[in-house]
C-alpha cells in the first residue's frame, strides 16, 4: 500500500513536469509552425510598409530602445535603493513600509502603470506619445523587480564576508564595493534578466505611452511601435495570425539572446572573482 502511494505520488510529479514542459513546447512549436515561413532577412531588416509586406526593423529598433533606456535608468536607481534598504537603513517600521510598497508595486497590473504614464509623462510632462515616455513608464514597472532581486542577492552574501572585511580596517563603502556587490552580482544580474523579460513582454503600458506609429523612430521623442504592440495590432486589425507569430519568433529569439548573454556575463564575472 505504501509502495502504491509512493508510485502514485511519483507519477503525479512526473505528470506535472511533463505538462509544464509540454505547454512550453506546444506554444513555441505553434508559433514557429505558423510564422517561420515568413522569417527571412527582408522581414527582419526591412523597413515597414503600410501597404502590406515589408519588414519589422522599426519595431525591433523601438523594442531595443525601450530596453536600453529603461534599464539605464532603472538599474542604478534600483541597485542603490536596494543597497540602502539592505545595508544602510536601520531596520524598522519605515523600512518595512518601503518593502511592503515595493512588493505591492510588483503586483499591480501593467495597464495601471500605462494609464499613469499616459497621464503623467505624456500629458503633464508634455512628452507626448514617445519612446521616452514609454521607457520611463517601463522604468517604474521594473524598478521594484530590480530592487527586490538585488535585496535578495545582498541577503545571500554571508555576514562573515562583511565581518572579515570590516575587521581589516576597511570602510563600509569599501566593503560594499569590493566584497558585497561582487558576491551579489549573479543575483543582481538575474534581476536584470527578469526585467528585460518584463520590458520586452510589456504591451498595454507601451501601447498607451508610445503609441502605435509604424515607422522608424527618428529619436527617442518619436512615437513608435514595439514588437509586442505590433504583434497585438496585426492580430487585432488585420487578423493576421501568421504575421503575429513571425513577430513572436523574433521576440523569442531576442529574449533568448539577451538571457544567454546575461548568463554568460555573470559566469565571466564569477570567474574573475573566484
Amino acid at each position, binding site marked *: 500500500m505504501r509502495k502504491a502511494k509512493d508510485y502514485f505520488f511519483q507519477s503525479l510529479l512526473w505528470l506535472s513536469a511533463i505538462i509544464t514542459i509540454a505547454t512550453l513546447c506546444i506554444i513555441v512549436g505553434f508559433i514557429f509552425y505558423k510564422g517561420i515561413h515568413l522569417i527571412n532577412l527582408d522581414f527582419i531588416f526591412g523597413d515597414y510598409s503600410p501597404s502590406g509586406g515589408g519588414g519589422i526593423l522599426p519595431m525591433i529598433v523601438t523594442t531595443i530602445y525601450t530596453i536600453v533606456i529603461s534599464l539605464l535608468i532603472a538599474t542604478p536607481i534600483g541597485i542603490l535603493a536596494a543597497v540602502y534598504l539592505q545595508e544602510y537603513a*536601520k*531596520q524598522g517600521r519605515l523600512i518595512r513600509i518601503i518593502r511592503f510598497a515595493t512588493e505591492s508595486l510588483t503586483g499591480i497590473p501593467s495597464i495601471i502603470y500605462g494609464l499613469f504614464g499616459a497621464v503623467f509623462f505624456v500629458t503633464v510632462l508634455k512628452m507626448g506619445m514617445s519612446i521616452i515616455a514609454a521607457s520611463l513608464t517601463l522604468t517604474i514597472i521594473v524598478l521594484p523587480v530590480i530592487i527586490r532581486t538585488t535585496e535578495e542577492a545582498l541577503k545571500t552574501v*554571508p555576514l*562573515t*564576508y*562583511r*565581518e*572579515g*572585511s*570590516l*575587521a*581589516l*580596517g*576597511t*570602510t563600509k563603502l*569599501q566593503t560594499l564595493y*569590493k*566584497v558585497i556587490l*561582487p*558576491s551579489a552580482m549573479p543575483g543582481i544580474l538575474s534581476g536584470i534578466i527578469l526585467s528585460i523579460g518584463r520590458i520586452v513582454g510589456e504591451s498595454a503600458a507601451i501601447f498607451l505611452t508610445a503609441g502605435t506609429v509604424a515607422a522608424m523612430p527618428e529619436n527617442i521623442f518619436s512615437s513608435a511601435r514595439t514588437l509586442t504592440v505590433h504583434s497585438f495590432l496585426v492580430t487585432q486589425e488585420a487578423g493576421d495570425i501568421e504575421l503575429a507569430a513571425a513577430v513572436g519568433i523574433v521576440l523569442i529569439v531576442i529574449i533568448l539572446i539577451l538571457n544567454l548573454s546575461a548568463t554568460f556575463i555573470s559566469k565571466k564575472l564569477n570567474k574573475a*572573482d*573566484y
Partner: protein
Amino acid sequence: MNTTKMDRNKGNEQQIQNKISVNDLNLFYGEKQALFSISIDIREKGVTALIGPSGCGKSTFLRTLNRMNDLIDGVKISGDIVIDNENIYRSNDVIKLRTKVGMVFQKPNLFPMSIYDNVAYGPRMQGIKSKKVLNQLVEDSLKSAAIWDEVKDRLKSSALGLSGGQQQRVCIARAIAMKPEVILMDEPTSALDPISTLKVEELIANMKKDYTIVIVTHNMQQAARVSDKTAFFLNGEIIEYANTETIFSMPKDQRTEDYVTGRFG
C-alpha cells in the same frame, strides 16, 4: 623577553607592560546584559586565553576589543577599554583601531578571490598600490603564517579551493598583512581537524613574540598549550584570571576548578 620569563616564574605582573586595560566593562544586547563589570589587563606580546562554557560572553568580550559589536543593532556598552593609552570607545576612528587590532574568526572567512588578493585586500584598501610592496607584503605575511610553501605556486587561484586548515592560516596571513599589534582569535581551530589545529597552534606559539594575541577557545587543552595567561569566564563575568599554569594546576575558585577538571561546560 627576560622580564617575561621572570614574570612567569614569579607570578609578578608589574614588570610587563599592559597592552590592553579593561575597566568595569558592561555590555547589553538590548535589555539583556551579557557582560558584567569586566576588568582585565592584557599583557603586551604573549598569548592570553579566554575560556569558559558557551554563551558565557567570551566571544562577546573579544569583539568589544576591536568594536565588532558595533555591527549589531542594540548593543550598549559602558566602561573603559584602553589600548596603548587610548580609550577605544571615546575615539571614533574605528578604522584605525581595526588596523591595529586584527581578528581571525571561528570559521575561515576568505573572500571569493585569489589567495593573493585576499592577503593584499587590507593593504590595498589602505591605499597601497605598488606591486612591489604588495608582492613583498603578501609573501612575508604568508611566510609568517607558515603557509607560504603550500600556496606559493597557486597565489592566483581561488582561496576557496584550499582546505579548511589552509584557509584559516591564510586568514591569519590576511590579518598579519595589516601589520597589527594585537590579534584577536575567536575559536580559530573549532572548525579544523586535529592536524590543522596543531599547525595553527604552532603558528600561534611562534607569533606571540611579535604580537599581543587574545584567543577565545572551547578547548581547555588548547588554552593550556598555547597561552601564558588565562581568564575563566562564566555567565558574563570573569571568575578568575591568572597565569595559565596556575589556572590549570591550582585554581583559587571552586567554579574554575570544576570547569578545568571537566565537571561542567
